[in-house]
């Protein structure tokens, strides 16, 4: 079981990037820098988003995610750096950009006393080639709420309406900022399915989130932002793997286990006994090394378990490093 697990992770490492460089870049961000007074919101941020991928921008609250998105969508002017979105300059070609990029931002709303159907009709009129509003409303499960005032919608319905509005212009790129914040787990999972459906329509998605699970589940690639800097950029699985500098294997040997058998292995850093259970800590190809050593010595073991890292571990590992860098003058 543990070896299978390892194989699987290995496969993920060597597999080609799903939406790799073969696809044309649709968003190119280079050396972006933005300060508010003495606060550095973005510090030398660079990344590229390719057509058709779900690109995650992950970070804690206040890490600079929203500022990055606002710069990309032309709502804010960076102090330095270059941004190209669909070949356009977000500030200079703002109107054209907004025709082709749908944006759902935090802290945004429509008038309280407008009905869902009215809002969608109004927003459709803003675009050159709007989507079929009725169809979008149905797709997002808002058909029954068509005549409901915005202020009477539930949190989940408001979020779904904001997806409708982000997609009503038939955008090539949809930027969704903290889409599932404040939703209950069921509504969140429902929203994830919707995002996958949207991508299936060929829309590139930039997903801003502070939920690890969300990024892990949805994103092809993730830029991890901390204190305004990109601390890592990779596929969620690869990020998780890269971050695990130490791993642990738990097993319960049936035969007596000589102490030095495992501690002598170069991959192993520590061996602990907890009653019948042995916990082996180490790095690199730890599971293979341990299992092979036991096999060669003819020792049988049961309940072999590995503790695999997930994106959350990666997040903590990577952002912890930059917390230390704080003392070197990086302001939050």
């Amino acid at each position, binding site marked *: 079981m543990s070896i299978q697990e390892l194989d699987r992770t290995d496969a993920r490492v060597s597999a080609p990037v799903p939406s790799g460089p073969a696809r044309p870049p649709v968003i190119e961000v280079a050396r972006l820098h933005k300060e508010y007074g003495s606060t550095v919101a973005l510090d030398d941020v660079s990344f590229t988003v390719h057509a058709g991928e779900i690109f995650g921008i992950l970070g804690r609250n206040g890490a600079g995610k929203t500022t990055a998105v606002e710069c990309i969508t032309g709502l804010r002017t960076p102090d330095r750096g270059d941004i190209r979105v669909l070949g356009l300059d977000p500030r200079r070609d703002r109107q054209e950009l907004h025709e082709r990029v749908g944006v759902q931002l935090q802290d945004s709303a429509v008038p309280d006393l407008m009905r869902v159907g009215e809002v969608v009709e109004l927003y459709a009129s803003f675009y050159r080639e709007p989507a079929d509003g009725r169809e979008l409303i149905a797709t997002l499960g808002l058909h029954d709420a068509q005549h409901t005032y915005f202020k009477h919608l539930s949190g989940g319905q408001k979020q779904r309406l904001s997806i409708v509005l982000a997609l009503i*212009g038939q955008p090539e790129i949809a930027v969704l900022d903290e889409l599932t914040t404040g939703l209950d787990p069921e509504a969140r999972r429902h929203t994830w399915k919707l995002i996958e459906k949207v991508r299936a329509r060929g829309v590139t998605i930039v997903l801003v989130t502070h939920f690890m699970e969300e990024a892990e589940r949805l994103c092809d690639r993730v830029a991890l932002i901390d204190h305004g800097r990109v601390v890592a950029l990779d596929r969620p699985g690869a990020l998780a793997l890269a971050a695990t500098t130490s791993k642990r294997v738990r097993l319960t040997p049936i035969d007596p286990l000589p102490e030095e058998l495992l501690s002598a292995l170069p991959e192993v850093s520590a061996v602990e006994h907890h009653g019948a259970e042995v916990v082996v800590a180490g790095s690199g190809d730890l599971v293979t090394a341990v299992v092979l050593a036991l096999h060669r010595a003819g020792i049988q073991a049961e309940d072999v378990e590995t503790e695999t890292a997930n994106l959350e571990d990666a997040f903590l590992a990577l952002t912890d490093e930059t917390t230390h860098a704080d003392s070197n003058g990086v302001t939050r």
Partner: protein
Amino acid sequence: MSTSALTLTPRQRRAFGLLVAGEIKIAIRRPVGLLVAIGIPFALLVIFGSIPATTRPEPALGGISFFDLYVPTLMVFVLIAVGLTGLPQQLSSYRQQGVLRRMSTTPVPPAWLLAAQTTVSLILAAIGIAILLGAGAGAYGLALPHDAGGDILSVVALLLTAAATIGLGLVVAAVAKSPQIAGAITALFFYPLAFFSGLYVPVQEIHSQLITDIAKVLPTGAGFNALHAAFGGQSPGVLPFLVLVGWVIVCSLAAARLFRWE
């Protein structure tokens, strides 16, 4: 904003029409604004129009009735109600709730929403004033301007007063961070401005040179003076119009400079 209505594409015209229609629906769904801007002046018109004493010509007022004097005041009241109570609250709540921010991500800039709001304010004002004049002339014998000259002067005075009060409202909307603050600032200006339009007591009857002089330089007093003269067949002179134009210029510049979309 720089695009004039004449250069709008059909698509843009449709978008603007839907924005205006939406704002009108909202005004009807939350009718407080309609009540203040149309209901209250109409009620005052009916009350004072029904009292025989106020509709009798009085030598002290130069041979006209109190009612004839009061209708221009009510027209000015409609304009400050529209400009100062409706507009700033609506726009500041749009900014606070993120309605302007939401629109700023579409091809249509949020300035259009401001333009739509202004259009709706003008439509409401036109309805309110039409009701006053229609009911006043039809039911209570209100004396309308005698000639085309008086008509034109009245329309110009109404438009300039509307521009000045809407301009004031936009300045309030520009500096108020929330609808509550907008309401507080508005209340501060609303009652003095209403006073100098003669809402509580005709400025002429106070017999104070100071009050009369202050009224002359305020948008409501100037608007009243111009309307009163034009309705009575007299020449309002240039002063009220210059004062109103001054207010329009100052308010537009201040609003354009101070307005924040977020």
